[in-house]
């Protein structure tokens, strides 16, 4: 077999083995991060939470996530991606399930903070893991495929969450308790499967032939040694670079809109339409489906024209128009039509904060 053939066969095997599985992991991660917004449809009134308490509890996830990001990454490099990704999934699943026992705002805040702390390092962990499997040119596409899991999670999560809320009262549990319990189980189960399914390195993958392993290992090793032509700029210079800060502010504002929407969408759709919980889930699932299409189109156009800033700007302007439309319109049904626009903003590749990591930058 000549070299290009060996390369494409090896990478196709790696893709088929790793990407669909990692994709499912990320769907579940996202589901457990934002399902509190659906739970809120019942939980807030059951427990008497104010809007401010719910908003803060949703957001405090990111304080835990942020604080533990660096420590989690350090441990990841020490114990290996496979074991650490497994630990992350099992712990966030356990905390997510524990959410069903929330009664007071302090426990709500603490559990959401812990959920963020548990999930910290997952996304960079997967990106780091992929760096052991893909040469640089192919890695960006692998990561991009993985990231599409976010809107796909919305398509599945909306109707699923709505259906689980309708179990309200079954076996004495409220619908929101069912939601936290059932949506946490896949994380724990998949966390265990990670240990047997994901090899740490190509060297230990029994589904690659020895020729394929050799090619991949040598290719990646060659890339690492050839990497020393970096632009001479110090870490300090990077941290004080005005462009970095400009980017930071862009992503700060994009994240405010994106996560503001993500956690509040179920309550907002409910208040606009007065639909049942099940229908709220279906409406939000449909909005996520629209998001997938716009994300793929915008991403493909951006790649094709090799242009990022304008594609991000246009998406953000559409998102802004969506927010203004929702705020101003008195007709609830019309307002709902602006929600897909709101959701569009962060969707072009990489404008959601943690997707900054690899190539996903504007």
């Amino acid at each position: 077999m000549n070299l290009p053939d060996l390369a494409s066969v090896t990478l196709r095997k790696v893709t088929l083995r790793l990407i669909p599985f990692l994709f499912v992991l990320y769907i579940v991660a996202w589901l457990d991060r934002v399902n509190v917004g659906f739970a809120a449809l019942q939980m807030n009134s059951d427990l008497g939470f104010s809007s401010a308490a719910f908003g803060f509890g949703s957001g405090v996830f990111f304080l835990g996530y942020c604080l533990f990001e660096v420590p989690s990454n350090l441990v990841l490099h020490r114990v290996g991606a496979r074991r650490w990704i497994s630990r992350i999934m099992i712990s966030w699943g356990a905390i997510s399930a524990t959410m069903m026992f929330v009664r007071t705002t302090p426990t709500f805040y603490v559990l959401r903070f812990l959920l963020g702390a548990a999930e910290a390092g997952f996304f960079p962990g997967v990106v780091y893991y992929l760096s052991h499997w893909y040469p640089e040119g192919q890695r960006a596409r692998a990561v991009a495929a993985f990231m599409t899991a976010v809107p796909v999670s919305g398509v599945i999560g909306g109707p699923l969450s709505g259906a689980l809320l309708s179990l309200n009262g079954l076996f004495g549990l409220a619908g929101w308790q069912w939601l936290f319990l059932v949506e946490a189980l896949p994380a724990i189960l998949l966390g265990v499967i990670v240990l047997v399914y994901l090899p740490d390195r190509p060297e230990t993958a029994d589904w690659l032939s020895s020729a394929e392993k050799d090619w991949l290992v040598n290719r990646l090793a060659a890339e690492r040694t050839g990497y020393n032509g970096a632009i001479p700029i110090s870490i300090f210079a990077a941290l004080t670079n005005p462009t970095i800060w400009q980017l930071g502010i862009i992503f700060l504002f994009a994240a405010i809109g994106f996560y503001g929407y993500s956690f509040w969408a179920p309550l907002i759709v409910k208040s606009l339409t007065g639909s049942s919980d099940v229908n709220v889930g279906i409406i939000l699932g449909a909005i996520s489906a629209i998001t997938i299409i716009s994300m793929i189109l915008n991403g493909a156009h951006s790649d094709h024209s090799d242009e990022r800033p304008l594609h991000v700007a246009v998406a953000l302007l559409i998102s802004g128009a969506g927010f203004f439309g929702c705020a101003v319109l008195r007709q609830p049904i019309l307002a709902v039509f602006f929600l897909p626009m709101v959701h569009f903003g962060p969707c072009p590749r990489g404008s959601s904060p943690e997707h900054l990591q690899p190539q996903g930058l504007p």
Partner: protein
Amino acid sequence: MPSRFLTGAPAAAGIALVVTIANVGGFAGPTIIGAMKDRFGTHGPAFMLLGGCAVVAALLAIALRRVAVLRGPAG
């Protein structure tokens, strides 16, 4: 975009900084909506604010086009 004009450890530091700032947005977004909903009784004012944030972010992104020249030879 840091990955386009920086490489190695400085790029990692720059990206970490941007991600950290962005996570603050993840905290602020839902918190602001909740606080403003309690204050005003509707989501409208919070949505106006979020729409304003999106427009400012869009303008800053357009301004970023000027720095593309900073791209390294590899980027």
